[in-house]
């Protein structure tokens, strides 16, 4: 009896897995296809190397170098801020916090990761941007830096939970042996846990970078959305916010519509490269 059920189950699992992968591939191809139409009209090189975005001009002027740079700039600022804090916190968690409180903290971190970006954006606009204007006397607080800081708070939970996982394991694995040599906790964390988690940290940074680059709602509220060459204290535009702002008006089939897909495609391509890198990092890590 089990043999029959087994074969049936295997068939359906295979089918479902196949459907899932097909569906995902379809979505990816779909986005690719929609962008391809645009790239027929505007060469991809021109699209990503020029910097005027003006869909309302006739003929349209659709190039997104500034926006690509803006996306990268904001996300990298976010990682630069979040990574040291995240790594530091995870080191603290891995060595100095007991099992139970750590489980609870990790749950809280998950909640943090789940706080909707609309809420972050809202707080960013009312608190962060205003803080910049008040304290630094900026004419307007919308800036790459504001976006970076907001994003750094948003990606912090991802960094912490990814790092903490590897670091916790490292600490558990080696602390007894090291303590048996009379070596202090701080030294263990500094010399073994930190140095052995480099790959985990890289993975966390890459994951966080991906999150940051794909984030829409929150970033849109605090960066000013001006498609100009980004400067740390100036406004900028990111690809997701571009799409979010303009998808409403871009009529299906128009060049503008395909250009938005193309922008999304460029973002995905960047993310894909990053994720493939992550995949290999993870794999080489598991081979250890």
């Amino acid at each position, binding site marked *: 009896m*089990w*043999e029959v059920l*087994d074969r049936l*189950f*295997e068939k359906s*699992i295979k089918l*479902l*897995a196949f*459907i*899932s*992968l097909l*569906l*995902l591939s379809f*979505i*990816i191809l779909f*986005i690719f296809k*929609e962008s391809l139409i645009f790239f027929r009209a505007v060469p991809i090189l021109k699209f990503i190397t020029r910097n005027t975005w003006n869909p309302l001009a006739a003929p349209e002027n659709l190039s997104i170098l500034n926006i690509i740079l803006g996306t990268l700039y904001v996300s990298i600022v976010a990682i630069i801020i979040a990574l*040291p*804090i*995240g*790594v*530091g916190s995870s*080191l*603290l*968690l891995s060595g100095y916090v007991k099992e139970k409180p750590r*489980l*609870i903290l990790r*749950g809280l971190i*998950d*909640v*943090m*990761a*789940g*706080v*909707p*970006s*609309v*809420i972050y954006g*809202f*707080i960013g606009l009312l608190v962060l941007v205003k803080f910049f204007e008040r304290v630094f006397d900026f004419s307007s607080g919308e800036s790459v830096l504001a976006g970076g800081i907001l994003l750094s*708070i948003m990606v912090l939970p991802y960094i912490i939970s990814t790092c903490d996982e590897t670091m916790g394991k490292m600490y558990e694995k080696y602390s007894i042996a090291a303590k048996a040599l009379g070596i202090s906790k*701080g*030294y263990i964390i*500094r010399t073994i846990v930190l140095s052995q988690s480099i790959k985990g940290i890289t993975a966390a940074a890459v994951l966080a970078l991906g999150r940051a*680059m*794909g984030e*829409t*709602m929150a970033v849109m509220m605090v960066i000013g959305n001006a498609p100009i060459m980004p400067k740390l204290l100036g406004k900028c535009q990111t*690809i*997701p916010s571009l*799409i*979010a702002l303009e*998808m409403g008006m871009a009529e*299906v089939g128009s060049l503008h519509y395909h250009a938005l897909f193309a922008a*999304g495609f460029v973002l*995905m391509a960047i*993310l*894909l490269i990053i*994720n493939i890198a992550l*995949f290999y990092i993870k794999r080489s890590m598991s081979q250890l």
Partner: protein
Amino acid sequence: MKKISSILFNAWILLSGLLALLSAAFIFIYIVKNGFKAMTWEFILSNPAGIPLGSEGGILPAIIGSLLLMLISCVFASILAISTAVYIVFYCKSKRMESLAHVVIQCMAGVPSIILGLFGYTFMVANLKMGRSLISAGLTSGIMIFPFIQARVEKTFREFSSSMLFSSYALGTTKLYTLLRLVLPQSIKDIVSSVTLAGGFAMGAAAPIILTGAVIFAPIPKSLSSPVMALPFHLYILTGEGISTEKSYGTALVLILLLFIINSVSISLTFWRKEAAK
């Protein structure tokens, strides 16, 4: 010299822990403090009202809508994601197939939710004529959380002791029996916790549903093809159109509280598992 570097190191990790905690605390306290005023039973249990709509009344349909969206996306995503994980871990024999699957899933994990929204709109709403509806929005969110669930479940399965699997096969039992009687009882809590966590993400995401099914006002939906209200979208409209700050904070607080409840389910499940393992 040893002293200095160790002091610097300790200062660094303490400070970053503090900063992380502070930023989290700030966000929660900010929302709780501002949202507290709006939180009444009436706010939770009634329909939005007032002119403009939402400036008075409550958010019941949005709460129900969000929960329904979560349910649909979770059911859809978990069936597919868990099957995929089972396939990859227990059935897939070819390494290449496995890598290919991973690349596709990784790739999907990298697709920003706004692009998924765009896809959902063009493909499901417009091309398939599913309309802006609970089902379109739920499926789009489901696609969004698929990679998350898949990765976590796969990890759970991979952590399952291979010597136990080995022992089970050695008794001549089949894979299905082993999966059902041995693996599932051990991993069910982890699976449920991954799914609830993902559900929380789905519930909080506005980007995939703006184009595919969220509306400003809808009663509690009666069928899969009705459009729905959803908390993040309601929040987006309340803040975006400057309708009512108090109600926005209130909505944000409700959303966070819901997430909190969902997550505590997942935390207590993990707890329970850890305790049971002892």
